[in-house]
Every structure is written in C-alpha cells, then in structure tokens.
C-alpha cells in the first residue's frame, strides 16, 4: 500500500495547475443555462481544447493527452480548486464519449469526437420520457426502420442541456413488438432539423437547464446507430457500470466545495463565533465526507488500473456524492444565516446556486431509491 502520488502524476498535476492559474476566467461566467452563458462556456472549452486540456483522457489523435485515471483525478482536483467553470460539454465528453470509444465506428469517432471536444457540438441526453423516469425500461419513443435509416417519433424529457444543445443521444424502441429492455436502439442525431421541437423547461432556479424534446418523424441514418440495432440497453448500460460510474462526478469538485465551506466557516467564526460553533460539527462532517469520497474513488480507480472489474461502486458512489453535495451546501446556507436566500449577483449566491443544483443529485441518473435497490439486490444479493 502506497499513497504517495507517482512523480508523473504530480508533474501532470503541476502542469495543469499552472495552465489553470493563468487561464481560468477571473470573473465567473454567466450561468450556462442562459444563451449568453452557454456561448461563454463554449468559448472557454474551446480555449481548453486548444491547450489540450479539454479531454485529457482521450487519445492524442482526438485532442486528448491519453491521461490515465490518476492523472484525470489530479486534473479534476486542480480544475475545481482553481474555480474553473462547469463543463458545458459534460454530457458528451463524460457520458457519451466512453460509449463511442467502446462501440462507435471509426466514421462515428472521426465525425463526432473532435467537435464534441471543442464544444462546437454540445450534446443533450435523450433518456427519460414523461412516463419513464425511474423505470427507464418502459420507454416508448419509437424508431421505425426505413430505407437507409430510421424514422424517430416520440417525446423525451428532462433532457439536460436540451435547451441549447446541438445533438442528442438516447434510446428508442426500434422493435414495436418488444417490451422492457429488449428491442431498443441507441441513436445519435442533430437537434437542429425538421421534426424536432425543443421546449425548454425552467428548472428550480428559473433557468432552462433542461428541455422536453418532441420528435416527429425525424430521420436518423443507419450510420448514426451506436452499437447494434436492438442492443441499445446493453450499449447504454455497459459504461454505467464501468469507469463512467467514476467520472460522473469527480471528487475534485466536492473537495473544492468542502474547502470553500471551511473558508466560509472561518470567516463566519471571525465575526460570529456562536453561529459558527453551532454548525461546526456539520462543517467538519462535510469536509470528512468529501475527503472520504476522494479516497473511495481513488481506491476504485487504482483497482480498475489493476484490472479489477468495477461494478456496483457506481451506485454507492452516486448515493454518497449526491447526499454529500446537499450536506455541503445546506451547511453553507446555515452559516450564511439571513443571507442564505440571496440570489443572482449577490456574493453569497454561489452557495444558493450550488444548493439548487445539488438538490437534483438524488433524482437524476437513477434516483437514490433506485440506487439503494441496486445495491441491495446486486451487491448484497437480497431478493427482488
């Protein structure tokens, strides 16, 4: 057992730190859930891409640095510690790209990955439907086989980034006779085309962070089927139980939040020691949990590097970070007292924004209730 950071990882970390220190915008970008903010975030990612920091784990031919998991974790720690912007391209680079690398054709890789990495083409998710949330396998949007491709109709909802995104990836029922996990196909298509209607949905903070997407006889060529026809469920799930479980929320993000919470605690303690003392236990609990999350992911990454299969860790991960994120922000709001609900351009509003964002954590990417079922049944072996 050796937790000393290898020299090459430390060097990589230092290089990232220096570039970020010189390049991270000094004033926060506008919210990426506004048109202006979306554009500003695209610009930032293009700058990252130019310096080859946008997709560090990708092969060099697609603009990456072929960085390993440890370098990736180090990069993420530095990224969030530097106060850098949230990643507008997250759906693409963290969720879709690993699937393309595993199942995509060469043509798909060449066509889709470079603009994704430059944030020229931002991807929206097409999983949930109005009747299919936790019960994803019940989805009904259909893809009908036609000459050279598919005709897609139906409705997707809670499509993160859907309001401003360029492309969508998602699952569609390609076999009308099928039910549940069978007969689904994973399709990729541009949102800016005839037959696609995007209705932005205002989320908790009032901004259109996601959208409903209505699909009316949209043509998707065969070349944009990812993995095999009817194999959609397998393709979608293969990466959720692999490294993607690790990369959905990097530890660096929560460690940076927890360290900012410590700063907030200290500045509160300096002026109001009673208020600070009353939440002292919560502050240190949040910090310890962020640290525990960091170590857990590091442990998982090191085991993955040793060739161990990664399984239900992604469910445990998701439970832990989603509850941690809420705890960090609730504690910060408690420290802010009267000013906890100040919004928009108020200086404390980053905590309120973060809280509202965190509240979605136990809901999306499989509710925490579903994740607990998964752990109980697949890890502990309890009966269904």
């Amino acid at each position, binding site marked *: 057992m050796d937790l000393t950071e290898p020299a090459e990882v430390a060097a990589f970390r230092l290089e990232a730190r220096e570039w970020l220190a010189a390049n991270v915008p000094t004033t926060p970008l506008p919210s990426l859930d506004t048109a202006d903010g979306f554009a500003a975030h695209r610009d930032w990612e293009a700058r990252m891409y130019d310096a080859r920091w946008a997709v560090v784990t990708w092969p060099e031919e697609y603009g990456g640095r072929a960085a390993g998991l440890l370098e990736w974790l180090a990069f993420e720690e530095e990224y969030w510690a530097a106060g850098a912007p949230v990643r507008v391209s997250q759906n693409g680079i963290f969720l879709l790209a690993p699937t393309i690398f595993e199942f995509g054709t060469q043509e798909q890789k060449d066509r889709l990955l470079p603009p994704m990495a430059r944030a020229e083409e931002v991807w929206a998710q097409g999983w949930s439907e109005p009747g299919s949330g936790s019960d994803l396998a019940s989805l009904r949007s259909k893809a009908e086989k036609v000459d050279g491709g598919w005709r897609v109709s139906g409705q997707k909802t809670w499509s993160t980034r859907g309001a401003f995104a360029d492309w969508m990836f998602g699952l569609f029922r390609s076999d009308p006779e099928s039910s549940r996990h069978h007969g689904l196909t994973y399709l990729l298509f541009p949102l800016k085309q005839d037959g696609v209607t995007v209705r932005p949905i205002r*989320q908790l903070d009032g901004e259109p962070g996601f959208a409903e997407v209505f699909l009316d006889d949209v043509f998707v060529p065969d070349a944009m089927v990812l993995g095999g026809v009817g194999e959609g469920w397998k393709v979608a799930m293969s990466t959720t139980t692999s490294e993607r479980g690790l990369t959905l929320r990097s530890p660096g993000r929560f460690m940076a939040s927890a360290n900012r919470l410590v700063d907030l605690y200290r500045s509160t303690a300096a002026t109001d020691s009673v208020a600070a003392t009353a939440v002292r236990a919560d502050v240190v609990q949040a910090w310890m949990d962020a640290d525990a999350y960091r170590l857990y992911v590091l442990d998982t990454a090191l085991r993955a590097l040793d060739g161990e299969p990664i399984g239900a860790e992604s469910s445990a991960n998701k439970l832990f970070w989603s509850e941690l994120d809420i705890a960090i922000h609730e504690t910060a709001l408690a420290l802010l007292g009267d000013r906890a609900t100040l919004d928009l351009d108020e200086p404390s509003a980053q905590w309120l924004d973060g809280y509202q964002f965190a509240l979605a954590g136990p809901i999306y990417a499989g509710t925490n209730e579903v994740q607990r079922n998964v752990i109980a049944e697949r890890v502990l072996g309890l009966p269904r």
Partner: protein
Amino acid sequence: MRVLPDPDALDFADSVRDLLSDAAGSTALRGAWDNENGLIPGLWKQLAEVGVLGLTVPEEYGGSGADLTSALPVLVETGRAATPEPVVETLVGTAVLAAAGGELAAHWLPRVVTGDAVLTVAFGPGQLVTAAPWADLFVVRDAAGVRAVPAVDVARIDHNSVDTGRRLAEISYDPTAGTVVDGADAESAFDLGAVAIAAQLTGLADAMLEMAVEYAKTREQFGAPIGSFQAIKHHLATAYVANSFARPVVARGAFSVASGWSTRRRDASHAKYAAGQAARRAARTALQVHAGIGYTFEHDLHMWMKRTWSLTSQWGGQAWHRERVAAAVLDGSVEGQG
C-alpha cells in the same frame, strides 16, 4: 387547558383558507412572484376586510383584540398558501405599537388595520427587511431600542432573493429619524415573530406533504403508483411525523409568549426550530417524491420550498434558534414547564 386553538379561531382560519384559495391560489401566487412588487393585487385589502390584519390589534384601534394563540390558525393558513404579503410583520409591528400606545399607536394602527397603511419590521439577528418597497412605516430594533421610522426617512438597498414572493432589502436611516417607541420590548416582539413564522412553517410543510401524497397516489412507475413503494411511504410517513410533533411545540410557544411565561424565549425558539426542521424535511421529501417534475419552475412546489428556505434562514436561522434553546436549557436552569 387546551393545546389546540379554540373552535372560533379555527372557524375564522377556515374562512381565511377559503379566501386564500379563491384569491391567492397558485396562479395568483405565480403572478406575484413575477410582478414588480411581489404581491397579489387586491389581496391586502381583502385580508384587511375579513379582519386578518387587525386580528390581534386592540379593539380601541379597530382590531379584534385576539391574542397570539387565537391567531395561530390563520398564520398556519398563510403558510399553507405561501402568501407573499407581510402578515407576520404586521402582527409584530402592530403589537409593538399597541403596547406603546400614545400618539404613534393612535395614528398608525387604525390605518394598518384597514390596509390603508403598511408597516414592516426588523427584529431578527440580521437586518434584511421584507415588504420594504411597499411599507409606510418601519418598526425596527436598533442600538437605541425600538424605533418607528416613516418610509420617507428610510434608504434601502433591494436584494435579489430566490423567494421572489418575499423580497428583501437592507435599510438605513439617520439615527435620529422617526420616533423612539417608548418602553417597547424588542425581545418579546422578536419572540412573537418567531412563533408566527413557526406557524407559517407548519402550514408550508402541510401543503408540501399534501402535494407529495397526491402525486405519489397518481404517478406510476414499474406498473404501480409510486406511493405503493415502501421507500416512498416511509419518506412521507417520517416527514408527516416530524410536522405532527412540531405543531404542539408551536402552540405551546404561542401560549408561552402570549402569557409572558419565564420560558417564553426558549419556547419561541423551540417553536421556530422544530417547525423549521419539519418544513425542511417536508420540502426535501416532497422534492424527492416529485422527482423531475418537482424540480421545475412550472410546478408549484418550488414556491413552497423557497418560502421554506426563506423562513428557516431569516428571523434567526435553525442553528441560531437551537443554540438559543441550548443556552436556556443547558447553561441556565430548566424552568417550569407549562
């Protein structure tokens, strides 16, 4: 001996509930959130007409002379409806003026009772004031005690709050502006507000749990209403129990403050803390049960959640009130319980 309010008070609250559901339902509320001043047009006058604004104002000033315990059910209803108007501030401000009596009371109270003048207050440990753009009189605690300052003498900086049904401002005024309210008991005014907000919080919690229960009965996943799954049942049962146990604590807080018990500070803080914890749990539970749809601005839930965040953060936050109870129970002596 009663914990529950008297039947008359409950009947009056029922009529206010009807009024609010007619005139201040979620569509009206949504309008208030979006409009310039954060209020429901016409509602203030209606609240005055049915007697809400003067409920606890002595009869000599045109009010009904009820005490805090009788006002609780109405406060619960204004919480259940997430009413944006400054009902609590009116209750506290009129109590301070009525206790002082004299010219100040004679001038302002009859106008406040009819809704022709609006007052607001600042008594909490912070200095954020609601209804400031709209108020004619500010009754505020400062170093000199309690001061009544007309709006014309008050400068304000408006802040953005996530709860746009409860706008916030920071105020300032010349230290000699307005009138010192002789003999005003700022601490008791603070306790009064704490209990009144606690009552609103139990109403907010009720409303959120009701929304969640209704949703859980109808929303289907995996071929069954989600309310048939034990995880959802237990979330809702736990939140329901928390609010059920907060309610008598709020009632005792009201009686203790109204009766001037020696434990009134502790009891008021216990009320706000317990109701606040219950409302926060109800908010988290309701959001988790609603999942995606509850996370949208289009759904009503967010207005109730954000009001919960406001009311548990201001007029003393949760940890602040818990520590106030701790100081009384752990550092002082546990005084006679009612």
